[in-house]
Structures are given as structure tokens and as C-alpha cells.
């Protein structure tokens, strides 16, 4: 088991490095106008050039990549081009909000999708059809439209929730709940459809296997067959579905945070992109991929534990 974890971790780190290098090279091509953008329209060409030199924008690509990697290993990700904020503190200050949204969303998705998926798989018929229709609707309507509707109806019209985030560093949990409810609902609604479909498929696949019939023949009641055996067997597939879904959510928060004016990682990504704030964009990419690597590691461990062939070896 330990070698298994070790290998996964190693491949995750390699992935991180590869992604970092590729992203850096990709973004390097845009640093032409950054200095002017920072200095604004009143600055003279000389001061713009001075700024460019100060930021190291006039050095060659490989040299900059090298220094960035060296700093990154020491967990120094530099400073934003536009503000005085350290990239690390920018990430860290925004992570709790985004991560809490994403984790709540994934837990809710897991619960609801499992419930609906299993019901649809077992009952078939009407429930199955309803789930499929829901799935189609959920997949068809883009997340930002769902978000817009939620804001208009529940925040502006009904005033049940705040229209913009009220969360501050000293906010009570109730404020977090009030401000995050609509965004989380938007996140969940968007992806629940496909997650349900996939869990349903995984479950049906298991139900068609021979051992299920044999278990029934042993006199084990249906409920136990479904929840002790089939669910367990379908769990790895389900976990994989959810881990992919988690990755998707990290992208989905970009839209939701923009709509609800939440100061999270997704919002930062959009703002940094619009301004070509290279250090921040790198920071967002690195942190996001690192989160994914960690989560995937946990999922792999869970899958490994669930699979007796891996567990006992």
C-alpha cells in the first residue's frame, strides 16, 4: 500500500512540474504590454521601461522559467504584478472560501446523485425516466444561466439570501451559510445531472453481474444486496466519477464566484487573466493542480482500500 501511495505522489509531483513549465511558457508571450498596463496611461515610456526591467520582463524565457522553478521549490511564488500582494497570501486568503464551497457542493452532489442514481438503477421505469429528464435539463442549461436565475429569483426578488457575498474575515458561520447557499446550489445543480447518470450506469453495470443473483439466491434480502454489496462494488466507479466532478467544480467556481461577487480563487483567476497578471495566474494554476493531485491521491487510496486485490498485497 505504501509503495502505491508513494508512486501516486511522485507522479503527481511530476505532473505539477510539467504543468507549471507549460503554463509559464504559454504566458510568457504576453508580457509585452504588462509594464504599460501596470504603469497606466500617464507614465512616460522611460518609467514603463524601468518597470519592465524591475519585474524582470526583459530577461530571456529560460532564465525566467528557471528562477521561477527555483523559487517555487522554496514555496516562493513571487508577487502580483499589479498589487503588492504575495501570490501565496493571495492564494491562501481565497482558498477557504472556494474550498468550502467546492467541498460542500461535492458532498451534496455525492449524496443526492447516489440516492437518485441508485433509485433510478433499481426501480427503472418512471423514476428512471424522470432522472434522465433531469439529467438532460441539468446538462443543457449552462451554469451561469442557472446562477443568474437563482440570483434574480432568490436574492433580488425574494430577498431570502444576500445578492452579494457578505463574508468577511470575522464573519459568523451563519453569514457564511447565508452567502454561500445560492452559489453552492448553483454548483450542485449544474453537475448533479451527469453525476447521477454515471452513478446510475455504474450501479446498473454491477447489478447485471452474476454474483448479485447468487447473493439473492442465498436468501439475502434485496436491501442488503443493494447497499452492502452492490453499492460497495460500485463505489470505486462512483468515487472516480466524483473525483472527476471535483475537478470540474474547480473550474465551475470561476463563473459562480464572478456572478455572486465572491472573493474566491475562481474570481481571482478571472481577474488575473483579464489583467495578464502572470504570477497570479501561475499561482492559481499551481494551487489548483496541487489540490487536484491531493484529492486524487485520497481517492486512489480509498479505491485501493476498497479493492481487496490492492489492500492485501
Amino acid at each position: 500500500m505504501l509503495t502505491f501511495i508513494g508512486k501516486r505522489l511522485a507522479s503527481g509531483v511530476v505532473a505539477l512540474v510539467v504543468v507549471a513549465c507549460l503554463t509559464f511558457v504559454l504566458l510568457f508571450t504576453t508580457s509585452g504590454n504588462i509594464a504599460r498596463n501596470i504603469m497606466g496611461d500617464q507614465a512616460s515610456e522611460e518609467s514603463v521601461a524601468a518597470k519592465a526591467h524591475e519585474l524582470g520582463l526583459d530577461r530571456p524565457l529560460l532564465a525566467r522559467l528557471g528562477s521561477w522553478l527555483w523559487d517555487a521549490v522554496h514555496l516562493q511564488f513571487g508577487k502580483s504584478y499589479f498589487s503588492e500582494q504575495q501570490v501565496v497570501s493571495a492564494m491562501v486568503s481565497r482558498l477557504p472560501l472556494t474550498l468550502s464551497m467546492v467541498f460542500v457542493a461535492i458532498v451534496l452532489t455525492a449524496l443526492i446523485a447516489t440516492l437518485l442514481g441508485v433509485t433510478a438503477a433499481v426501480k427503472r421505469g418512471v423514476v428512471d425516466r424522470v432522472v434522465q429528464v433531469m439529467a438532460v435539463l441539468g446538462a443543457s442549461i449552462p451554469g451561469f444561466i442557472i446562477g443568474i436565475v437563482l440570483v434574480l429569483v432568490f436574492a433580488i426578488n425574494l430577498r431570502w439570501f444576500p445578492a452579494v457575498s457578505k463574508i468577511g474575515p470575522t464573519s459568523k458561520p451563519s453569514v457564511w451559510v447565508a452567502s454561500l447557499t445560492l452559489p453552492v446550489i448553483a454548483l450542485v445543480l449544474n453537475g448533479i445531472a451527469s453525476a447521477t447518470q454515471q452513478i446510475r450506469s455504474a450501479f446498473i453495470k454491477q447489478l447485471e453481474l452474476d454474483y448479485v443473483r447468487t447473493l439473492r439466491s442465498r436468501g439475502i434480502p434485496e436491501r442488503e444486496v443493494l447497499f452492502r454489496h452492490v453499492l460497495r462494488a460500485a463505489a470505486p466507479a462512483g468515487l472516480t466519477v466524483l473525483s472527476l466532478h471535483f475537478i470540474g467544480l474547480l473550474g465551475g467556481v470561476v463563473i459562480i464566484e464572478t456572478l455572486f461577487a465572491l472573493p474566491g480563487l475562481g474570481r481571482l483567476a478571472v481577474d488575473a487573466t483579464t489583467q495578464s497578471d502572470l504570477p497570479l495566474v501561475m499561482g492559481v494554476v499551481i494551487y489548483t493542480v496541487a489540490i487536484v493531485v491531493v484529492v486524487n491521491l485520497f481517492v486512489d487510496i480509498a479505491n485501493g482500500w476498497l479493492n481487496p486485490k490492492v489492500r492485501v498485497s
Partner: protein
Amino acid sequence: MLSRRSVLKGAAIGIAGVAGLTACSGEDTAASAGGPKELVIGILAEPPSWHPAQTHVGHLLQPYQLAYDSLLLRQPDGTLKPMLATEWKYTDDAKTTLQLKLRTDVTFSDGEKFDASVVKANLENFKKANGKQVAMLENFASAEVGDASTITIKLAKADPAFEYYLSQAAGLMGSPKAITGTDIATTPVGSGPYTMVKAESVKGSQYVFTKREGYWNTSLQKWDKITLKLLIDVTARVNAIVTNQIDATLLDPNTRSQAEAAGLTLLQWPVDWNGLLLFDRGGKVCPALADVRVRQAINYAIDRESLVKNVAGGQATVTSQVFGPASGSSVEGLDKLYTFDQAKAKSLLAAAGYANGFDITIPMTPGDDVTSNYIKQMLGDVGIRVAITAVPAADYQGTIGKGTYAMARFNLFQGPTWVACNQLIVPKTLYNPFQSTNDVIAPLLEATRGAGDQVGEKGKAVNQYVTENAWFAPFYRANQLYFYNAKKLKVTEQVQMAVPSIYNYEPVA
């Protein structure tokens, strides 16, 4: 990462704040000023750094006013009054030596005392720091400390806008100890009416300020707590203000009706002009533009009235000149110099040899596609074929500065005369990328520079020249649409500033 101490301190402040809030809500039966006065303003942009040398204009000046005082105070109508400086005057005719007398009773929030050496340190630091408004001190040569309350500033050249600058970014005074350090970038240290509550302030989200005890001018200190909430998106701002999450903010023609329907009060005043800058007066990128008749034809081709109606929702005034009324250099008849006259435009083009029109490319950023479409349409109707290239916002100014485009549309603020000249007309500026100049305009500019108090009058000649020679094709002066909750406060506009000065917000009794 918050240290434990700051968390505890923050918790203490937070609890006090919450207690304060609950106290407030429980006491609204009290007749006069019962309970703390709290203001929440929705802002469009946040200070990238709280170091006073990084101050900008308009939206990015207002936040700094909470923590910093300036040497001179600019009134809502533009007149300059004493603030940290009690008197000021030029001591020579060339207007290159400015002597200021300073207050002696001012202290910074870190305990440092304000005096002439502080002024010198700040001015020198401002120039060295190469911030966004470093051009304000372009002509600053040196500062001499007389005594603790006297300082003499020497300018390399006369600068009619210099006193104005001392009421803006260049005049902000930070604590001498703090401005050389790095902490001031995240926590402002000034002599202003408020101090930032670090524990409740989050970059990218909100900044919370509370009243500073011991501030020297309590009449400017009208609130107990001010929160600046960053809401970049206008829809988020209107949502926030109609649900009373914020008390005042800037909106736009699209969101105006929503705010009015919610019973909020509108304050409007003109700040920007919207129009085309016809950079390429030398015809380098687009030969046609070298001919003044072509440039005039462009002016005649624009239907300004319909732009006012369709783009600005009626909240604008048609204009043909780039100098605003508040500058003193606007000329009576020039506003309506160019009427909407397609026939005239076509005949001018024909006279210039472009009866069949010509091609030109203009840049556009997301967000101004509406106006760009109309421009394309209107110019196309007289034979000028316009191609539009989308340029990312981050690259816009850089691309302009490189002289990539022969003309471009901008929303630019109309400041005092010399500021406007520096912004648009002098050869070295970003908005004159082809460095257009000639034997007529150069002397006019020089005369304006040396005009001292007469800068407004002298500026009229510059204005006349650039307008008649169609250096620009202005459309209109748009009004800022500022909304606030009249039940809670009253706001007064600040001339030539995109949002009101922080001193212009008063609680309603």
C-alpha cells in the same frame, strides 16, 4: 496567515463591532445621533497598494482619502483650500518656486509627527517610487526645508497644474517611518480621519476603516465606520444597493432604472468625455487622416444625439470639444461646432480626394462593443470602412502607445486645463502616440504652461485649435450616475472626479 495575536485582536474588534451593530439596531428610536454612523460604499477598483506613492485618480483616489491627508484640500467645486498646508504661494514670477506653510498639530496614526521634512520625504519618495501618477511630479526638482512648518518646492519648469496635484495623489502624506518600509503597502499609515481595521479587511473583498481618535479636523470626520466593498461588476453593485447591502455606489445607464425603482437617489455630474482620438494626424498608419478635411468629415459623420440616447441612455451632453466646462478652457460655440451632416462629411471627403472612402482599423475592448458598432455604422454610411479588432483590456494602452492604430475610442476624464493638455496634446503623452505637433500648437501650449492663474483663458486658444483642426472627434460628455440611500446619507459630487471625495458623504441626521 493571521497570527494568533492578530486573530485575537481581530476577534476583539469584531465582537466590539458586532456589539456596536446590535447596539445600533436596537437604538433607532433615539432622536438625534444615537448609535454609531456606518457607511458602506461599493467601489469598482481596489488600491493595488496602500503606499501613498501608488495613488491614482478618481476611483483610486477616494480610498486613500480615508487614511491620508493631502497638502491641499479640493472642494467639491474645485477650489483649493488649506489642509495640511495652511498657505501657499509662488515666490517668483517664473512660477517655479512654491512656498508652503504647514500645520504643526498633525500626527500620524503610528505616532510620528508631521512637519516639513515629512513633506520633503514624501515628495522625493513619490518621484522615486515610479507609481501610476509619477508624471504629476515630472517638473518637481527639489524641496527645501525651511523650518518645521515651512517648505519650498522648486520646479524645473512652470506647471500650472502643480497646486492641483498637491490636492491629489502627489500631495498625500504618509508617515515618514512607514513610507520607507513595506508594511505600508498592505496597511496604510497616514494622518487621515480613519484607520484601517486589518482584521476585517480582505484584499479583493472589502476594506473596513474606523474613526481615528486624535484627528486634527473632526469636521471632516463624519462617520464612525466606513466599509469599502469591492464590487467590480455593475450588476453586482446594483444588486447590492437595491438590497441595502451597500449605501452608495456608481451605476450605469443600464442599471439606473433598477436603482430608481428601489427608491435610491441619483446624483449625476459630468466627468468624462467619450469620443474618438484621431491620433494619426501625420498619416503614418492611415494616410487619409493627415488631411484635416478627412478628420472633420469624421466629426460630421457622427450622429451624436443618437449616441447620447442609445449608449448613454440620455444622460449626457453633446460636445465637440475635449476641454470640459469646469476647466475654464471650454469655448461657448465649440460644443456644437460639428453637427450631424452626412452630406457635408461626404463632400469633405471628396474634396480631400476620398470620394470612394478609405479603410481604417480601430481597436476595441470587451465592454465598449456597443459604441464601436455605432461608430462603424456611422462612418460606414459616409464611405469610411471601419474594421474592428478586439484587443484584450490588458494590452489596450500598450498597443495604443506603440502607435498601432490610427484612431481609437476612449472615455477620458476632463481635468483642469493643463492636466488635459498633458494628457492629450503635448507630444510626449500616451494619448499622442504619433507625437503630433506643429508650429502653431507648440507656442500655444507654451503660453498656456506659463499662464499661471490665466491658464484657463490661455487654454482656450489650444482648445480652439485642436477642435477646429479635428484632432479629436468627441461625442458627448457623459454623466456619472451615482446612487445613494437618501434615508441614510447625503452625497455631493466632486467636480472632475469620477466618484465623490470621501469628505462629501454626510450622514443624515
